[in-house]
């Protein structure tokens, strides 16, 4: 017999209050507090200031109370989709913080929000233009011939192109869930961008830039049950957990902070990389120059996520065989694409290793 069946009528209010009803009412009572947490959510754990800029692109420098231990600075290069603060989301969930605390003068490229005036910016403008100027500014600023680069996702692909074109400017390269080989077509994003079904030229000709809402919709639809159902069930389950709510709303802030991608850049990346796989095959040209990954000779650390639904390991790991470096390391971590940056396990177990790897190779 259950507790409610055994209770006498006099005990009913107390028994009704217990169990699932009590839990449900507690959740309802927790909503105002949850909304207050949502309102006060702030993203970005480490103070940063812009130190250089070209057009809409800014170079952000993370502030540290301690002087840098290493001469050569570290530059984070994020994707052009979404905002770069995912790398420094919250205290305890910040990749940036690991490197700042370990003693690197740390910078991040904020690509800005492209408008219709920027729709003609392509790979050449981003890699040979903006990124090169950011790197050169850092080299002048630090007085070092070489700097360290960490590229995340599409930012990793751009970093790989850059280092292949300018190997003399980079001391160490870390790639984080960065796609370089699109030969395998067995996952959703590859199927959706297949030229038989996706006419990127017509899209960009019509819209100018790749619309943020379209990109957001596509990314959410990659995991529909997780993004449209499980996430909200999990929110309901944890409505009384303040720490969970802080992390949840910080993540939601980032996920919904979408920006468009400059049209020509999107067209070239989809066409040349995702559809024609030119990067790994050495057929990609940026600004008239051939990009050959074997020209990358610096130490390389390639970090991939085992459960990555956006960039499967198979798109990243071939990088280590394609480069000319002799010092190549690959780590596949049990996490998802975003979990690799903000996951508690990754922050505890993966990033200290990455920091150590870089420290052993830094000046």
């Amino acid at each position, binding site marked *: 017999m259950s507790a409610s069946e055994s209770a006498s009528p006099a005990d009913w209010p107390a028994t009704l209050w217990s169990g699932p009803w009590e839990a449900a009412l507690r959740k309802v009572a927790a909503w105002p507090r949850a909304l207050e947490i949502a309102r006060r959510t702030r993203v970005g754990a480490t103070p940063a200031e812009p130190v250089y800029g070209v057009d809409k692109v800014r170079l952000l420098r993370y502030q540290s109370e301690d002087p840098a231990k290493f001469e050569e600075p570290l530059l984070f290069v994020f994707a052009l989709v979404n905002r770069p603060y995912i790398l420094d989301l919250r205290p305890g969930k910040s990749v940036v913080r690991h490197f700042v605390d370990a003693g690197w003068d740390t910078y991040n490229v904020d690509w800005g929000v492209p408008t219709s005036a920027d729709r003609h910016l392509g790979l050449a403008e981003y890699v*040979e*233009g903006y990124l090169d100027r950011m790197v*050169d500014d850092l080299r002048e600023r630090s007085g070092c011939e070489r700097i360290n680069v960490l590229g995340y996702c599409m930012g990793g692909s751009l970093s790989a192109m850059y280092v292949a074109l300018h190997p003399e*400017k980079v001391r160490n390269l870390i790639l984080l869930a960065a796609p370089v080989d699109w030969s395998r077509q067995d996952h*959703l994003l590859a*199927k*959706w961008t297949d030229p038989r079904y996706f006419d990127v030229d017509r899209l960009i000709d019509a819209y100018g830039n790749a619309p943020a809402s379209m990109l957001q919709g596509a990314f959410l639809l990659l995991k529909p049950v997780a993004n449209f*159902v499980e996430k909200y069930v999990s929110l309901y389950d944890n409505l009384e957990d303040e720490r969970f709510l802080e992390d949840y709303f910080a993540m939601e802030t980032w996920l919904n902070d979408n920006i468009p991608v400059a049209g020509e850049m999107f067209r070239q990346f989809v066409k040349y990389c995702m559809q024609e796989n030119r990067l790994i095959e050495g057929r990609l040209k940026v*600004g008239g120059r051939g990009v050959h990954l074997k020209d990358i000779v610096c130490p390389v650390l390639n970090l991939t996520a085992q459960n990555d639904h956006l960039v499967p390991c198979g798109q990243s790991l071939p990088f280590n065989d394609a480069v000319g470096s002799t010092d190549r390391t690959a780590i596949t971590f049990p996490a998802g694409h975003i979990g690799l940056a903000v996951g508690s396990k990754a922050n505890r177990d993966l990033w200290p290793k990455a920091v150590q790897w870089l420290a052993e190779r830094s000046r």
Partner: protein
Amino acid sequence: MGVVTNQQSSTSDAFTQMWLDMMSQFGTGLAGAGAPAGEAFGRQLRKSFFDAWARYWEEFLGSEAFLESMKKGMESSLAMKEQMDRVVRQAMEGSPLASASESEAMIQALRRIEESLHGQLRSLTDRVAALEEQVAGKSPSRAVRGRGTKGGSA
């Protein structure tokens, strides 16, 4: 009537498959961890359902049927956007304001000038490098060449 089309059949097959997946995963979970009780049981059942549902969706979103409908949906939405843009362009004709196509033509002209200047700069850089090579009798340092490009237009 008992007529079942191929599409209905494949949908029901996929649903049956999802259901079987869920039950099988749930059964495996129970066998591995021992029978959970109360809330833990509910959570495990829910997780099994979500996992199976997610696999079902992933299969559907990669299916030929979905890809074809995605293509058609995108084509119609782009056709509508193109039509609207045409209407706006026609309405703008005769207006003293610069139209989008005129701005576009101006941007294209600027881009052509920019590309031509870049080409000339690249050719000059190569000639200087070749001269340096001749003078020094060895290959010039790439770092010096790299620094020389700083300040160039993005």
